[in-house]
């Protein structure tokens, strides 16, 4: 292999780069064209100033935060318990956590709508609050594969058994062990799962739209159907947000321990 790389490698790289960079440049250029005859950030100003943007964006941020909390609550004790006590159930648990990648989101939410309607035994959809809760639950299901894998990777790097025994000797109960011993030790892993969840939830369209909740995804879709320049500005904003979440994950990965001193 020559020093500067082979010509075919550079060619492939630049072709790929063209396909990925040109839409970003074009979208940015388009988003600046709102005022006739000059480039301006008018589209961004209009988007940020609109009350609908502010409301739907904060709705999705709040939904994302609750999703992360619910995800941590479900995943951390489960992954911990699987590692500590029931390793033989790992394939089953992993299989279940991967199901949301197999069953499309639209099918899952379709099931919710039919199962948890106003006349059902668990009428989530009969009130606004209930629907919000169901949306957060749905998001937690969508995030399950990513959250579980992140936490499980984090648990691999700590000595779960010794930490548990040490905490038990000092008289700690299960809740204390999980919240004050295990969770702080896998915090970096949990946070990287959290950022990915955040990126997924923020722009999610299908579930929010079918449950009729005023989230950011349906707002963007609606704006796209009615406006010209604002959607381009939104696309750039969304891309930067995704970039921010991914950078945060990479940044965290640098500080995460790579392996435990004593393998489990």
């Amino acid at each position: 292999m020559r020093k500067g790389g082979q010509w075919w490698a550079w060619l492939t790289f630049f072709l790929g780069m063209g396909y990925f960079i040109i839409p970003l440049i074009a979208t940015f250029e388009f988003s600046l064209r709102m005022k006739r005859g000059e480039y301006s950030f008018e589209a961004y100003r209009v988007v940020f100033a609109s009350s609908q943007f502010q409301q739907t964006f904060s709705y999705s941020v709040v939904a994302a935060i609750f999703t992360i909390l619910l995800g941590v609550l479900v995943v951390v004790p489960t992954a911990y318990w699987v590692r500590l006590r029931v390793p033989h159930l790992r394939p089953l648990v992993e299989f279940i956590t991967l199901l949301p990648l197999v069953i499309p989101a639209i099918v899952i939410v379709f099931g919710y709508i039919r199962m948890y309607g106003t006349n059902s035994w668990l009428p989530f959809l009969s009130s606004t609050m209930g629907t919000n809760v169901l949306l957060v639950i749905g998001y937690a299901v969508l995030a399950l594969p990513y959250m579980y894998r992140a936490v499980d990777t984090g648990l691999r790097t700590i000595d779960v058994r010794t930490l548990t025994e040490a905490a038990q000797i000092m008289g700690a109960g299960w809740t204390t062990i999980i919240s004050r011993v295990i969770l702080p030790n896998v915090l970096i892993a949990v946070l990287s799962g959290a950022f990915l969840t955040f990126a997924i939830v923020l722009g999610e369209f299908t579930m929010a739209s079918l449950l009729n909740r005023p989230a950011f995804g349906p707002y963007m879709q609606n704006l796209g159907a009615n406006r010209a320049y604002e959607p381009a500005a939104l696309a750039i904003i969304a891309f930067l947000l995704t970039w921010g979440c991914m950078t945060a994950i990479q940044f965290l990965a640098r500080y995460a321990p790579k392996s435990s001193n004593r393998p489990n």
Partner: protein
Amino acid sequence: MTDSAVSSAPVKSRSIRLPTQWLGLAPFFLFALLFLVLPTMYLIIGAFQTRDGAFTFENIAKLFTTPTIRQSYWISMKISFWSAMLGALAGFAIAAAIVRGGLPEWVRASTLTFSGVASNFAGVPLAFAFLATLGRLGLVTIILRDLFGFNLYSTGFNLLSSWGLIAVYLYFQIPLMIVIITPALDGLKKEWGEAAATLGATTWQFWRMVVIPVLLPSFLGTLVLLFANAFGAIATAYAFTGSSLNIVPISLYAQIRGDVLNDPNLGYALAFGMIVITGLANVFYIWFRTRSERWLK
């Protein structure tokens, strides 16, 4: 159950520990059952029922006999297949370039970082980006027209078509392929290349007889994963073309919104068909992955 455990002394400690072991997973199983398994089962069972609740294959048969539904499955599969195939080939080429092309380290690092972002940049904003690029007033359209005198839209080009959607889907399919296949390419041992060279193999022979057979299961596995990925996606397509493009997720969306098929059980069958296809794709994925682990650990 506890009574029998107490009466038989030798198994006592085990029988008492068993329930608590399961208990630790009870919240998770309950969560998964209520919000993942049961809602899906509800639809699957509904797909095999008449309106009165009797068992029937009628709904499944209608998926094949109703022209619009059959067509929507066909278009969906076509879009998913081509976006997966082109995405996998292009992604593999780029991954091969950054892993084996002798490019500087920063090229590899920035490509992988960008791929991580772009594979998650899907949904509504992605559709906007392509409309702003190749729409009637998009930058690329204007540059082609003003600088090269080439009017894209007079050639019958239509962005809001199957092929337009495939081009858009590639924006997350290619990066996903890069992210998944790069570790597999890294797994190719240096010794294999040296051994092949010692035996007098040309580069082409090395690729044909070592690299391609070793990587084929990973490649095919990722291919079906990309297929499932595109098949279940709706947000991009919906923001892109509205309800004009007849693909399965959009038909299902319309059905959930307002029972456009005028037959709830046919709607369940539509969802069931999606589960079967994405489920099959994942079975193949797992099968290919176990095959690829034989050489690449």
